[in-house]
């Protein structure tokens, strides 16, 4: 670590910022620690099963799971399950953003619209998405559309509330400064309200993305005939324990990848922010 003797371009940049940019050395050290953490977790899991620790006795070992995974990787249906689940999650998620963000912006910006709509959303919001399953099966023509609808609900309220809160948290100074600089209401909305609410909108997206995956699995178990959630359930019915764990890990990976995608989009959309 000879950082002081030969400052890298990144190091020079970091010196001029109020919050330093982590150097490459720090990033690779974090990656190393992360890998060590996963390895330790797998080792403890293997040890627990071999030693017949309580609760772990009937769990397949990491080796069994890896074997089951390898055989699944040769099965085209496994890839189809990934695809189907991703399509459901992103379908519901995108519709939730497309409706939730504009509604949240409008509710945050216009007090009259807020007082009109807020009570309705406040009553609907605490209803767990899964409580909507029976009704949505009756309502929607296909199981596919009812699954998408329930996923949509999972992300919709989160992004709506976060967008609304983001708009309301914008410091009055910025709006006043913009008006004094001659900005019209349309410019204030586009260049102050929207970017000012972005950090909160992306927080809502990240949380909402997590919710959609947990909703998806339950929805697939109840109403699906495919997908990663259904794969896990099917493995349970068939008594194939290693495949259950493969299904679980697949869902975990899928959720992680989706959240990473939100973070990447957030970092691109907000170059001024170091929050994501």
């Amino acid at each position: 670590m000879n950082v002081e003797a030969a400052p890298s371009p990144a190091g020079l940049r970091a010196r001029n910022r109020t919050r330093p940019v982590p150097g490459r050395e720090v990033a690779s050290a974090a990656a190393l620690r992360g890998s060590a953490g996963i390895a330790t977790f797998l080792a403890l899991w293997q040890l627990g099963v071999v030693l017949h620790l309580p609760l772990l006795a009937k769990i397949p070992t990491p080796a069994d799971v890896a074997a089951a995974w390898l055989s699944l990787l040769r099965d085209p249906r496994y890839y189809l399950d990934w695809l189907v689940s991703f399509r459901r999650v992103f379908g519901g998620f995108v519709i939730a953003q497309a409706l939730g963000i504009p509604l949240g912006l409008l509710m945050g910006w216009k007090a009259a619209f807020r007082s009109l709509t807020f009570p309705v959303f406040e009553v609907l919001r605490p209803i767990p998405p899964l409580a909507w399953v029976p009704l949505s099966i009756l309502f929607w023509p296909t199981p596919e559309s009812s699954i998408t609808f329930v996923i949509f609900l999972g992300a919709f309220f989160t992004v709506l509330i976060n967008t609304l809160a983001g708009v309301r948290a914008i410091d009055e100074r910025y709006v006043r400064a913009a008006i004094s600089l001659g900005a019209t209401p349309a410019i204030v909305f586009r260049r102050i309200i929207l970017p000012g609410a972005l950090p909160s909108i992306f927080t809502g997206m990240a949380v909402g993305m997590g919710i959609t995956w947990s909703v998806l699995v339950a929805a697939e178990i109840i109403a699906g005939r495919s997908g990663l959630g259904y794969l896990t359930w099917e493995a349970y019915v068939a008594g194939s324990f290693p495949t259950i764990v493969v299904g679980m890990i697949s869902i975990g990976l899928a959720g992680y990848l989706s959240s990473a995608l939100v973070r990447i989009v957030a970092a691109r959309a907000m170059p001024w922010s170091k929050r994501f």
Partner: protein
Amino acid sequence: MVETLLSARAGRLEVRDVAKAFETAAGATLVVDRCSFTLEPNMLTVMVGPSGCGKTTLINLIAGYERPTSGEIVLDGRAVSAAGADRLVVFQETALFPWMTVLDNVAFGPLSRGNGTRSGVLLRARSLLDEVGLTGFADRYPNQLSGGMQRRAELARAILNEPAVMLMDEPFRGLDAMTRELMQEHYLRLFEQRLGTNLFVTSELGEALFLGDRLLVMTRKPTQVKRVIEIDLPRPREFHMLTSERFREIYEEALAALYDEGAKSLSQSG
């Protein structure tokens, strides 16, 4: 030519018998009462008063963010009814937009109003950034700048917008002493080159006298003008004037008026 330029943005602002009351849980509180003064074009008027006396409320009224309860504020013969680009506030804390680069911040006003071509505005913005010593920082975001640099960027943004009246609400508060002196110099140089109508609110009497042409000493809340003192120090102002005999005389006169108010507000609250 010069005459038409000046009359286009004459910027004579009159505060006429203004009062402002706020509704609170304990009833209406009068913050400003029977307050009258005039901001003359090409004059730097400075305002001092006991802290919390209502100076910021006055700024908000002049800017048009709030409406007076009674009385009126008149700019070049027309009553002020809302916020507009002819009056610009530089706030106590930075109001640079965090999501825009320094250059976009500085160019925001003219670009929003469609005042000139984009390339022309950006060119003027860059040369103003040079003038306040921010060459090379145009593409940074505000949070990558020090406090003093943010203030200078904000000054550049205010000046590029060419308001008829500039309202400075304790803009250098919270800066360390060195940076503050540097900012005073920057501000003085910009004012002495461009003039225009300026109101500078501060809680530092020394700063007020060093910068201003005319001092308004305000009373405690509900505030009004207690004393008007002409600061007849020559321009351009230099730091050595801070130790001149004339400066000391004005300082003592202003301090006496201010101390009187301070003592009253202490005995009132105690």
